[in-house]
């Protein structure tokens, strides 16, 4: 129990230190840090609209954060979140906007198809690792590039609204039946039921890891593959399966962007931002715990959303939040340094 508390302290401490350093930079820019942080906070959390914005921005990051932590439990670094998000989004847009059959063009069916697409896409890397020992970091990065280029192709040719000669690289909007329910329509922020799905995913991931045979085997493989092999666990299968599940989680994040109405229900260029990569930071800051992923996704989203309000209301550029993020990630990555300092202190006491 004490250790868990200590584990939680480090991310909190990292955020705190980042805010202090950020305050120094803001002060150096000639602004009042308190004033800037006031707008950063209110912009992210005060008022229905702010909350809707923040949670909307957090939703895909929860999914990609879960994706990274799921693979990590199996001992793998899933750097391929971006590609998986893109593939999930493209399938959602393609089926949602082009398939007329009402039975298929249904938001649940589309989510399942997106998830399967993400599974298949990530499982390529999983299969390569399990069968040929190709390192997943390399293969998932390469799959990202393939997905990004495929995205360009798809948006400019087969899925382009108005055909290849259409006005801009984006798909037509998905049909009504393929859209996710809006949760706060009065805010006009597209905050949708995808957030609830993300929370459900958090619970499912937690349940798999803590209660099921699969989770037990995944953790065994992640911690000690040679022991797992001796215990009769099918290590290659678990490896490929875990990466596949990780991929489907990220893909759901992509589907939410399209079906939730962030871009008027179309897939347009740049809509996937860097959510796949954000997942790495989210999982890292969340200490690879599902609930931690929710909290850190909301934190990163709040920084971005609040950053815009800060820029609007003060002379502090919103890029300052990128610095804050970077400092947080650095500090978390340097966790061992922290621990060493903490321990050193104790020894000298």
């Amino acid at each position, binding site marked *: 129990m004490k250790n868990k508390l200590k584990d939680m302290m480090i991310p909190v401490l990292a955020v705190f230190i980042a805010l202090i350093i950020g305050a120094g930079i803001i002060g150096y820019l000639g602004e009042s840090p308190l004033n800037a942080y006031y707008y950063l906070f209110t912009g992210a959390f005060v008022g229905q609209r702010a909350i809707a914005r923040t949670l909307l921005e957090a939703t895909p990051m929860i999914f990609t954060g879960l994706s990274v932590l799921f693979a990590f439990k199996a001992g793998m670094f899933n750097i391929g979140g971006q590609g998986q998000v893109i593939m999930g989004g493209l399938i959602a847009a393609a089926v949602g906007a082009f398939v007329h059959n009402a039975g298929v063009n249904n938001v649940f069916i589309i989510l399942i198809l997106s998830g399967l697409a993400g599974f298949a896409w990530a499982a390529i890397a999983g299969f390569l690792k399990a069968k040929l020992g190709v390192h997943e970091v390399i293969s998932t990065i390469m799959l990202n590039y393939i997905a990004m280029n495929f995205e360009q192709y798809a948006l400019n040719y087969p899925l382009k609204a108005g055909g290849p000669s259409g006005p801009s690289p984006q798909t037509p909007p998905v049909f009504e039946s393929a859209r996710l329910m809006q949760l706060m329509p009065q805010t006009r922020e597209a905050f949708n039921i995808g957030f609830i799905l993300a929370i459900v995913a958090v619970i499912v991931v937690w349940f798999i890891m803590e*209660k*099921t*045979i699969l989770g037990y085997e995944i953790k065994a493989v992640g*911690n*000690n593959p040679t*022991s797992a*092999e*001796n215990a*009769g666990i099918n290590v290659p299968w678990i490896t490929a399966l875990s990466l596949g599940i990780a991929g489907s989680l990220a893909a759901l994040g992509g589907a939410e962007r399209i079906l939730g109405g962030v871009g008027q229900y179309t897939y347009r260029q740049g809509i996937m931002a860097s959510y796949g990569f954000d997942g790495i930071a989210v999982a890292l800051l969340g200490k690879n715990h599902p609930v931690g992923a929710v909290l850190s996704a909301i934190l990163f989203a709040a920084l971005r959303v609040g950053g815009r309000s800060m820029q609007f209301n003060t002379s502090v550029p919103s890029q300052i939040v990128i610095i804050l993020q970077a400092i947080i990630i650095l500090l978390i990555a340097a966790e061992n340094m922290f621990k060493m300092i903490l321990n050193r202190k104790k*020894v000298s006491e």
Partner: protein
Amino acid sequence: MSEYILEMKNIRKTFLGGKVVANDDITLKIEKGEKHAIVGENGAGKSTLMKILNGLYHPTSGEVYYHGKGVKIEGPGEAAKLGIGMVYQHFMLVPTLSVAENMVLGVEPKKGLSLDINTAREEVKRVSEKYGLAIDPDAIISDLSVGMQQRVEILKILFKGANLLVFDEPTAVLIPQEVKELYKIMDNLIAEGKTIIFISHKLQEVLDISDNITVIRRGKDVANFPTEEATKEKIANAMVGRPVLFTTEKPEVEMGRELVSVNNLLVKNNKGIIAVDEVNFDIREGEILGIAGVEGSGQTELIEALTGLRKAEAGTVVLEGEALLGKTPKKITLEGVAHIPEDRFKRAAVSEFSVRDNFAFGVHKEKYSKNKFMLNFAKMAEEAKHFMEKYDVRPREINVGFGRLSGGNQQKVIVARELEKEHKFIIIAQPTRGVDIGAIESIHKMVLEEKEKGKAVLVVSAELSEIMNLSDRIAVMCGGKITGILDRADATEEKIGILMAGGKLDEK
């Protein structure tokens, strides 16, 4: 002027701000020209004390005197300057360089800018002749036997001017013949005026070689006596803190039919080189077959092939008419093979898991599932409690991390889990590695109980005494081949040693 070359007085070393006490007020006095043994169980604090002597750790309190003068040893370099040299269990040699090159590494004689190799070779000859360490200065380290490599280590520290030599478990990697030669070398060193400290947990060896013995238990020096007054029982008593039985009574068991039969087994290692070369043996019900041999003679690959972890190139393994080769580890387990791996961290357990989860490991699907998807944690906890009681695993706390148990208790968890599996044949590798003397006794008892139950037992161990103690027959491996199978009654250390080195026994 003191007659002691080294005195360590009231050494205390704590970690984590006093939470862990590794050395608790240890006083060690080493006379000039003696062979002083330091014995103690794993984790008793021997290594910490030696690291302090070598300057790798600094004591929390206490003083070190060398030749009667108080010294503060800041690092290994300084220790070497004082004349303290260490021969580690794991050698610190560059395998691609020659003996001479290794010896002068770090203090190379130079001719202009280049290494003066001739001077180095002369030095090797001079030093090795002086101490009776016959060795070829031009031999490449990787071509040398382990015993020879150890000599190079000794040579290295002598060359750097060591007067006090510290040997850390020096016989762990040697065959019996090499051990005898090492004893001779130690005698030569003493004759030349050197002093020796050696660390060991092998009681026989301590009795054979030392002049004085210091026993360390839980960070304290609990006993100190001349070897003349020592017996195995007395040392073990001091090490464990209670009387220890040595020879576990071997039960008389009527051996049944042949249960396991291995024929012409051929297995390659990771490098694609043949590691198990046409091995044949069989084991009957109620029989313990021991496999002796220097580590790395193919034992690991043999076990991995038998348990399905490694593909065999050729041959057959049959358990009660069922062929095992080519099956997955899971299927082989279900056929009735239990396996206590040689390296519990690599093969047997997940350190990050709790004790409860490790008890279930490998039988989680068969024994502890609620349905196809869910684990029955309540049952796991209940059984874990029961096993901890039955096999005396301490502390009796099912949620403690496996990695935090002592070596002996970790091994008991693994042993318990494997013995409780449905099985006819059990493979036990290095049953007491990293296990303290107190637990060795109970683990040996468990192995012998398997014999009583009529199981076929294969014991692989690097500890010859353990093999001699447990086995009904002893197969000796060398270079992947079984060089001989002896009945326990005919087996002597001498004979096994010859076979371990790849020699042949005269027909007689």
